[in-house]
């Protein structure tokens, strides 16, 4: 894609996202569906920062997603009923955990790395599941809700107003995506691509590969925990299932569906996933097999995902 086309594509995406609450009802959706797409797209794009651009697969991102969710929930419920502080706590919790865990695991590769990310995820899952008194156990963390944000000159009622919540999510999404895009354009981002393409050669060039992977991991988990906080706010609920490895698997599916190698790929993937899930589950109880089937077909015939189809056409 030429530079002009790419800028045009970016502009189109932002335009669509900015106006989504207004055209979404018209096509049969509803605003909180749009918020949900954005949150999961953020999670998938954060995962893809690590998977598609650094070439490292993690099946344990849900752990930090869940940490963010529980962070904001626990803060609002027990500490201080303030949404922004809750988000900050959730993000910090997820990032600190990721930093510590990342330092331990970054020397592993391939399936070992993926499995150890699952291991940590499962440990967090069982803690959330068993620590009934604090986390509500299997029932999840309920009994709290989004608190309208008091900005001094105005109050943003994210509790009652779906559109307000959507725009809060969009702002967070924009910040996160902007940072990720800037990083990927920078020399740091180029180095990550080099590591993805040929790790050994990168090492021979003197690049401290482990440290780069660790940084990529931390950045990725930071934004995934942000997505987690937004997800919990969206639902007024934090679920231990958000921490399980199959939730991580969902993020991977979204990233691959949309296209791992494209920046906006996971956004498309998340949109497809959420819409399919929403639409099919209202028709039949067996939406899982449809998504599974769709995914299998994509892996077999369109490994570059939906975006890959566009890129192939553009290349001709």
């Amino acid at each position: 894609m030429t530079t002009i086309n790419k800028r045009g594509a970016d502009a189109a995406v932002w335009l669509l996202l900015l106006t989504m609450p207004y055209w979404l009802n018209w096509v049969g959706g509803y605003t909180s569906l749009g918020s949900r797409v954005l949150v999961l797209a953020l999670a998938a794009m954060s995962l893809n920062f690590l998977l598609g651009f650094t070439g490292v697969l993690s099946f344990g991102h849900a752990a930090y997603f869940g940490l963010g969710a529980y962070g904001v929930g626990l803060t609002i419920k027990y500490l201080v009923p303030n949404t922004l502080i809750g988000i900050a706590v959730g993000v910090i919790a997820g990032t600190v955990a990721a930093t510590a865990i990342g330092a331990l695991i970054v020397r592993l590769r391939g399936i070992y790395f993926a499995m150890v990310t699952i291991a940590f995820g499962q440990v967090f899952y069982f803690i959330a599941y068993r620590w009934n008194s604090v986390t509500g156990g299997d029932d999840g963390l309920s009994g709290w809700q989004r608190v309208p944000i008091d900005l001094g000159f105005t109050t943003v009622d994210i509790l009652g107003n779906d559109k307000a919540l959507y725009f809060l999510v969009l702002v967070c999404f924009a910040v996160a995506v902007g940072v990720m895009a800037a990083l990927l354009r920078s020399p740091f981002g180029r180095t990550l691509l080099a590591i993805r393409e040929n790790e050994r050669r990168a090492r021979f060039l003197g690049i401290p590969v482990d440290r780069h992977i660790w940084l990529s991991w931390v950045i990725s988990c930071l934004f995934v925990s942000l997505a987690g906080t937004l997800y919990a706010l969206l639902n007024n609920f934090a679920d231990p299932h958000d921490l399980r490895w199959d939730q991580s698997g969902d993020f991977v599916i979204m990233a691959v569906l949309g296209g791992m190698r494209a920046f906006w790929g996971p956004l498309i993937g998340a949109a497809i996933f959420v819409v399919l899930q929403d639409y099919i589950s209202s028709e039949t109880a067996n939406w899982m097999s449809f998504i599974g089937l769709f995914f299998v077909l994509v892996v077999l015939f369109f490994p570059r995902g939906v975006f890959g189809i566009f890129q192939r056409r553009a290349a001709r």
Partner: protein
Amino acid sequence: MTQLLLFNLFNGLIIGAFYALMALGLSLILNLSGVINFAHGGFLAIGAYLAYTLMPYIGFWGALAVAPVLTAGLGLVVERVLIRPLYGRDPLYSLLLTFGLAFILEDGTRYIWGPATLPFAIPGWLSSPLSNTLFFLTGYRMFMVALVIAAVIGLFLILNRTRLGMRIRAGTLDLETVSVLGINTRILRNLNFGLGIYLAGLAGVLAAGMLGLQPTIGSTLIMPSFVAIIIGGLGSLPGTLLGGLLIGVASGVTAVFFPSASEAVIYVIMGLVLLVRPRGLLGEEGRF
């Protein structure tokens, strides 16, 4: 206290034997084809449900004999159609494919047999305890252990005494050379996959008797199998066996002291193994 500990230890060994059976099938497939079969649990579920369906016609023993074979047949088809196209590509894709396949299999069983837990009837004489003092030694658990031992011996015999087994072992070491020597590696991988799935189906029939039959039975059991392989070491079948037994026992013993941590402990052990000795207890260096 000792009684309780003994009970849980024994229970743990039995569960561990069962994990080992499932993990062995996974390990077989992984070692030869390099495919991380996330759908293994799904095949386990299919084996269990097929046995359930066949039981009214051919009884428990008939189902035990036939269901794993049918499941293996399904495995052969799946390998030929879905997995073979992906051998040339990045191993990530076969992992993703089996992940999607797991969804399909789990939901498929839910669609065909319904989401409710189904009763799985094991022969009456198997479910009674064998003695009054050692009450936990029910016939069924003993039978499970016996069957796992038989399966492991059978697998060992196939791998070491048959031509197919020899080729599988050789392929695990160097598939390309095996191919150059004139062996049809496509069929070899296909049959190996079928063998692995046979073990999954067998484990499924056993699991149904022990845990009850529901669509999620596969996804519940797939993770401990991976953990067993990682702990035992990739590339080593005895390692997988050991890993399975170890996590079973660890889980059982933890249930005595910290009941709420008994599920999490296997992941803690896996994490420790990966950090201290990544190749696993009996694994070979540099496998991945």
